[in-house]
């Protein structure tokens, strides 16, 4: 899969999120879904921490949402971007909302249809950053050329997640310290210390 669009890539690094919600506000400004914020911002463990984490569509190589859509309403374009539901076709069943492994599509009751992040295709198709990445102050959401990432950021980029038996390759990249450990295994046993045990690394030697 081509991970680039107009020579640039979209990178998400939830660990950098500072919870400013600029992405939530700016998402509404996207031309393809004006007035509707489609990004998700989660409090990771609300009772114990103020830590937040964003989630955008990862634009799967083989999108689960499109495969479970009974109306054939979700299409992937030639850039590998998985687009929002085609309005004439979407019948509002929420299969995609429930099946997306990343929990991305949103169902809107009044127009009775699903909408999802389309990587601000009005912008990224001409080389501009998606709205969320254009305002993210901590670069938890980042858009740029691979060489720019290599020069300014640390860590490896990875495009694969594992959910149980299912491997999900994505167009959007995420950051890990070392990609040789393989895909991000979401259901696997957490290796090492849980971050809540020592959130600021004070006990590290």
């Amino acid at each position, binding site marked *: 899969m081509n991970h680039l669009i107009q020579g640039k890539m979209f990178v998400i690094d*939830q*660990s950098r*999120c500072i919870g400013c919600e600029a992405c939530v506000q700016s998402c509404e400004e996207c*031309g*393809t879904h*004006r007035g509707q914020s489609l990004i998700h911002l*989660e409090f*990771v*463990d609300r009772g114990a921490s103020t830590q937040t*984490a964003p*989630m955008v569509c990862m634009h799967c*190589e*083989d999108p*689960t949402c499109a*495969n*479970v*859509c*009974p*109306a054939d309403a979700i299409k992937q374009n030639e850039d590998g971007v998985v*687009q929002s539901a085609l*309005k*004439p076709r979407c*019948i*509002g*069943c*929420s*299969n995609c909302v*429930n*099946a*997306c*492994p*990343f*929990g991305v599509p949103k169902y809107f009751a*009044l*127009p009775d*249809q699903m909408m999802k992040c*389309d990587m601000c295709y*009005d912008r990224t198709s001409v080389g501009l950053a998606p709205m969320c990445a254009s305002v993210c102050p901590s670069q938890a959401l980042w858009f740029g050329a691979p060489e720019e990432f290599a020069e300014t950021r640390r*860590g490896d980029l990875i495009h694969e*997640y594992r*959910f*149980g*038996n*299912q*491997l999900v*390759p994505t167009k959007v990249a*995420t*950051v*890990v*310290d*070392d990609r040789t450990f393989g895909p*991000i*295994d*979401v*259901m*696997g046993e*957490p290796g090492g210390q849980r*971050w809540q045990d020592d*959130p*600021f690394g004070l006990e590290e030697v």
Partner: protein
Amino acid sequence: MEEPTAVERHASGSGNSAQRRSPKVIRTGTGGLDVRAAVWGFAAVIVVLVGVYVGSGNLRWFDAALAGYLIGVLLAVFATVYRYLVWIQRPPTAVLNRRGWESFRRKGKVGANVGGLIGLVFTNIFAQGFIRRRSVARWAAHQLVFWGCILAAAVTFPLTFGWLHFESVGQEGSHYRAFLFGISTASFPAESLIGFVTFHLLNIAAFLVIGGVLVFLHRRLRDPGALAVERATDFLPLAGLFAVSITGLFLTVSSLWLEGRYYSFLTDLHALTVILGLLYIPFGKLFHIFQRPANLGVHYYKQAGAEGEQQLCRVCDEPWASKMQIDDLKFVLPQVGFDYAHEGSSNWQDTCPSCRRKSIALAQTQRVGGFG
């Protein structure tokens, strides 16, 4: 080289095949003729032909000049039935189709559901309130095109089938009488308002459709979001509807103001646009006319789901969706090549969307040594 589709990738087993189960049902769209769908398509064509024969008084009232239109209708009927049946065999569509009807026929709910259906057909199919809540301009445009097409179909189909014809009353040409299925109905003076409206129904329909098409076109040419994602196939139905309407209006122009000049050529041109338009319906964007009513089934599916057992999240233990729908998804996913099971006992699909996002964030941060 063209990229393989999602289904082709499953079929060929390429791309992480080790992680995926073999799909039980593969429909590539190129796997040859679907015999069952073709038989139903032919059956529908025969029903129309019998309807034409009987309804036109054994072809007595059938207008041979409209035979081209009838052939266009028959081809469109066959292709629409064929595509519809292929469509509802796709695993997620088949499950939804079955569940929708099951939910509709639930014990003790049939009466209320039938009653509710009338309201749903009015609000969702005729009034299309869901489009109005998206954009008033789009709703107005859609209503213009929708009612324009309904009006045109209500006039042209009965005329083409020989179900409707007009005769002058007695020896005078000043009065006309409409015959439906050969049965005499009201007569009216040709020069009256009723006569004018009756003989210009298709012109009225053409103005409605053109009005709607222009609003749609304005959006497609001006809206930045639409410009980014639209395709040539979004313009094709607009071009087709415009072509049918404008060539239809040309016939009236020729007849009223050009003393019938070019009428024969314009008749052929109009017939060509209509027949091509009919043939486009099953293959293009306008097929949503037949897909969209599935939304009514979704209404009953959701209602039954909300009243039934709820799915608890495997992480937060909170109810988040209908268990029936999640079970249906876990039935469909392996058929389309996905396996979200984990160590035999749990399934990622049992996780609520919010916990999915949190778990992903936690898994990612584990790989970079925590937050911050």
